[in-house]
């Protein structure tokens, strides 16, 4: 028996699943089809999940996993409304660019970034679960001959008033005549009070494998007959190999082929060791015409600083309210300072790696890669081979960290694996060394920021003007997107809107400077530096007003009660009011709509210039928390990330080449410099807003403000390296 109820927008996915028992197709617009086939007993409930007669509930995971635990958290949201037993749930990674699963926040693009996975899928995945639960109730009602309303569900079971229990698996094996699909928008969602999964500390699914060495990353993929490749890349962006002498490299035992790429030379060998050895023997001449050869981070930052102070500079208004210029002009006094920040590197511990196996016709390919986007990885492969999407078999691997590293529209490491495989007619794994990853990194942009604000004689803020001179990040890592959104670059500017404060006369401007490095989104994006400047400046204003930094901020959050709560909470946690001689620094920032108030306590070693952070307290509001223990872990990780980038992380560029090479000259924070971190997560009845980045933006300013408390001097150039701290102390 097969019946079909078709509505518009039938996905090809439905048509592919000929053996389905029951298929609902849920796009962004809601359910659109059901297909019944009682011979095959699997209940294939909408595109998002399948229920087997044995009770297994397979839920699609539409994002990609880089450590943030969306892999567990997103299916939990669906399982909640389905009333599934979490132990019955099997998680299925989405391995194709199927926009029906796209994140609504990104217009349906499969893109895992910006702390948006829970936020974006919270509604559609819960509705998918609720729809399927409703259908299961209908089937059960038919079977039992009772009213649907008389039934209830718990843990993968429908329960009748007389106590009869029907498992979801048993219902999955049943016919479906007469089933009505409830409308996506009309379906009733649970009262949060009755949540059994959302808000509970359910262990992550991936932790056992990650505690036993069994988790498989792209760099671990092993295929029959697979070759290994490393790529000698152009030392400067924009150059190309003009002459390749590979005679000596080819003599290395195990070398299969040397493949010239648009911006590098790929050495393909039987082993990674042989490929690495042969790469050292390559003699390559590069073109010397790239404008990037003039890139020099010191002069870049100086030019940005000049631009930000140039009253004639072109600006793109990022956020505006009232009339900041007049308010500042009419203020009793004004304060203005310049803040600088250097390039920073993602430093994910798994360097770039990808495996490709190109079909003999050169148009089909199977690819294993860890990236933050099925969509742009698919795009990269299609462009590389000149092929169509249906010829691509993709495996989205769990990533060894990413933090924005693997977001680009064109993914060169994927491209190189595909080109190398096509050239040698074998599966090829491309592995980047750490040096490759640093030298060819894509960075958080350098920025120069000028802040100016007015004060009244009674110590109130009047007028705020935040100018940010930095390039467009989107314009580099996704140029097509930039054509649509320019001149508004959320990656470059986030945080400068200072939206958690109520400032009547406010303006934030983007001075879009020339790009002089490869750029990418980075944990916290713009807020990683705009909140440094804004919150360090806020402290300077408080001081100029002769007021306590907490009281000064509290005045500005009178209309933001949730923010006010966080500031008061973190003050309480850290003993702010009774801090005595302790060097505490306060900050209040966040990410998107998630807020974080933080206090850092520091000690300073004057002779070495080292800042030792001895404690951090944070109070965070990220709306409803789906997975509290993981949220805590993510927020803490974000704080550690912020601490690390505040103290030591810095990329320099000279003549177009990245100066740093590895973790010995790009220092990220180690265990012995990580303080106790106390985190309070506010319990609020509001939609979730993301936890992956909220911890990061407030840290650097909290440390800078604590430094002022410790030594009475301001740190206005991030990172606060030992040499910079020493020079500030000596000034």
């Amino acid at each position, binding site marked *: 028996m097969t019946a079909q109820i078709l509505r518009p927008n039938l996905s090809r996915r439905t048509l592919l699943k000929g053996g389905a028992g029951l298929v609902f197709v849920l796009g962004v617009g809601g359910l659109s089809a059901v297909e019944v086939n009682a011979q095959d007993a699997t209940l294939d409930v909408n595109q998002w999940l399948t229920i087997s007669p044995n009770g297994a509930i397979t839920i699609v995971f539409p994002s990609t996993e*880089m*450590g*943030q*635990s969306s892999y567990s958290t997103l299916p939990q949201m669906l399982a909640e409304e389905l009333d599934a037993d979490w132990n019955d749930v099997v998680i299925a990674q989405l391995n194709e660019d199927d926009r029906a699963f796209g994140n609504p926040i990104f217009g349906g693009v499969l893109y895992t970034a910006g702390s948006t996975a829970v936020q974006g899928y919270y509604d559609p995945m819960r509705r998918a679960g609720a729809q399927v639960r409703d259908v299961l109730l209908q089937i059960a009602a038919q079977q039992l001959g009772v009213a649907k309303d008389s039934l209830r569900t718990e843990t993968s079971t429908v329960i009748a008033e007389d106590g009869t229990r029907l498992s979801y698996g048993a219902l999955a094996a049943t016919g479906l005549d007469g089933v009505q699909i409830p409308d996506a928008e009309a379906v009733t969602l649970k009262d949060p009070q009755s949540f059994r999964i959302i808000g509970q500390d359910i*262990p*992550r699914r*991936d*932790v*056992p*494998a*990650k*505690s*036993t*060495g*069994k988790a*498989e*990353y792209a*760099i*671990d993929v*092993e295929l029959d007959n697979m070759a*290994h490749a490393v790529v000698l890349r152009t030392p400067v962006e924009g150059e190309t190999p003009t002459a390749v002498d590979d005679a000596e490299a080819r003599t290395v035992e195990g070398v299969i082929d040397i493949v010239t790429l648009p911006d590098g030379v790929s050495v393909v060998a039987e*082993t*990674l*060791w042989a490929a690495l050895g042969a790469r050292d023997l390559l003699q390559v001449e590069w073109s010397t015409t790239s404008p990037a050869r003039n890139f020099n981070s010191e002069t870049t930052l100086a030019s940005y600083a000049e631009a930000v102070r140039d009253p004639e500079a072109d600006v793109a208004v990022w956020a505006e309210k009232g009339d900041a210029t007049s308010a500042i002009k009419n203020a009793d006094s004004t304060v203005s300072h310049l803040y600088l920040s250097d390039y920073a590197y993602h*430093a*994910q*511990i*798994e*360097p770039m790696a990808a495996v490709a196996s190109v079909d003999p016709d050169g148009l089909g390919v199977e690819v294993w890669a860890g990236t933050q986007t099925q969509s742009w990885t698919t795009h990269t492969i299609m462009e590389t081979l000149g092929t169509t999407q249906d010829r691509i078999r993709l495996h989205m691997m*769990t*990533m*060894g*960290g*990413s*933090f924005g590293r693997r977001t680009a529209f064109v993914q060169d490491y994927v491209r190189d694996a595909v080109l190398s495989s096509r050239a040698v007619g074998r599966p090829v794994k491309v*592995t980047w*060394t*750490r*040096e490759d990853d640093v030298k060819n990194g894509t960075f958080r942009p350098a920025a120069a920021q000028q802040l100016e604000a007015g004060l009244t004689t009674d110590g109130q803020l009047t007028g705020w003007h935040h100018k940010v001179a930095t390039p467009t990040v989107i314009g580099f890592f996704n140029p097509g997107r930039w054509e649509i959104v320019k001149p508004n670059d959320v990656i470059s500017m986030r945080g400068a809107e200072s939206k958690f404060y109520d400032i009547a006369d406010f303006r934030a401007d983007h001075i879009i400077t020339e790009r002089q490095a490869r750029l990418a989104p980075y944990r916290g994006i713009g807020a990683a530096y705009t909140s440094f400047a804004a919150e360090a400046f806020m402290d300077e204003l408080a001081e100029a007003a002769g007021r306590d930094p907490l009281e000064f901020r509290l005045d500005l959050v009178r209309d933001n009660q949730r923010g006010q709560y966080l500031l008061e909470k973190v003050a309480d946690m850290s003993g702010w009011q009774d801090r005595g001689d302790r060097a505490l620094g306060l900050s209040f920032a966040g990410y998107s709509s998630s807020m974080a108030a933080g206090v850092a306590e520091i000690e300073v070693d004057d002779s070495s210039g080292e800042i030792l952070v001895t404690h951090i307290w944070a109070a965070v509001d990220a709306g409803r928390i789906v997975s509290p*223990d*993981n949220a805590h*872990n*993510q927020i*803490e*990780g*974000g*704080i*550690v*990330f912020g601490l*690390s980038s505040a103290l030591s992380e810095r990329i320099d560029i000279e003549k177009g080449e990245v100066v740093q090479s*590895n*973790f*010995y000259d790009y220092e*990220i*924070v*180690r*265990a*012995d410099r*990580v303080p*106790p971190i106390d985190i309070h997560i506010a319990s609020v009845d509001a939609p979730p807003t993301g936890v992956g980045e909220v911890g990061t933006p407030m840290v650097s300013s909290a440390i800078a403000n604590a430094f002022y408390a410790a030594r009475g001097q301001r740190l206005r150039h991030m990172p606060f390296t030992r040499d910079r701290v020493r020079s500030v102390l000596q000034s």
Partner: protein
Amino acid sequence: MTQFTLNGRPVEVDRPTDELLLLVIRDALGLKGTKYGCGAAMCGACTVHVDGAPEFSCQLAVGDIEGAEVTTIEGLSEDGTHPLQKAWIDQQVPQCGYCQSGQIMRAAALLSENPEPSRTEIANYMSANLCRCGTYNRIFKAVEQAALEV
């Protein structure tokens, strides 16, 4: 041909004697739990035990460990139930997880040297290994939990 003991079993590999132990473990012997992170003894993702001592397997040539006993994360316990692994799961330590094999192997070496380490001793010892996700405080808690069991 190099012979050594890997996770309790004798192995013989026909690889260049200067090839990194890390790559031999991963690519010749197929144990992928030991990770490449930096190749420079800076991140510890490649940490294994050689004759009981923690070593960066990216710093050893396979020829140098002839006859030695090498233990990787796969050999720490037969079924993933070493007290540290149980503690790692209890404390939900990993985020991306990429560094955690190395962290656990480093922690195992610590506990064999010092069964009751203080928080400061843990932090100092574990400073050989980087975690970019920032799970350090959970690592400390997990090591303390495991120390109660070892």
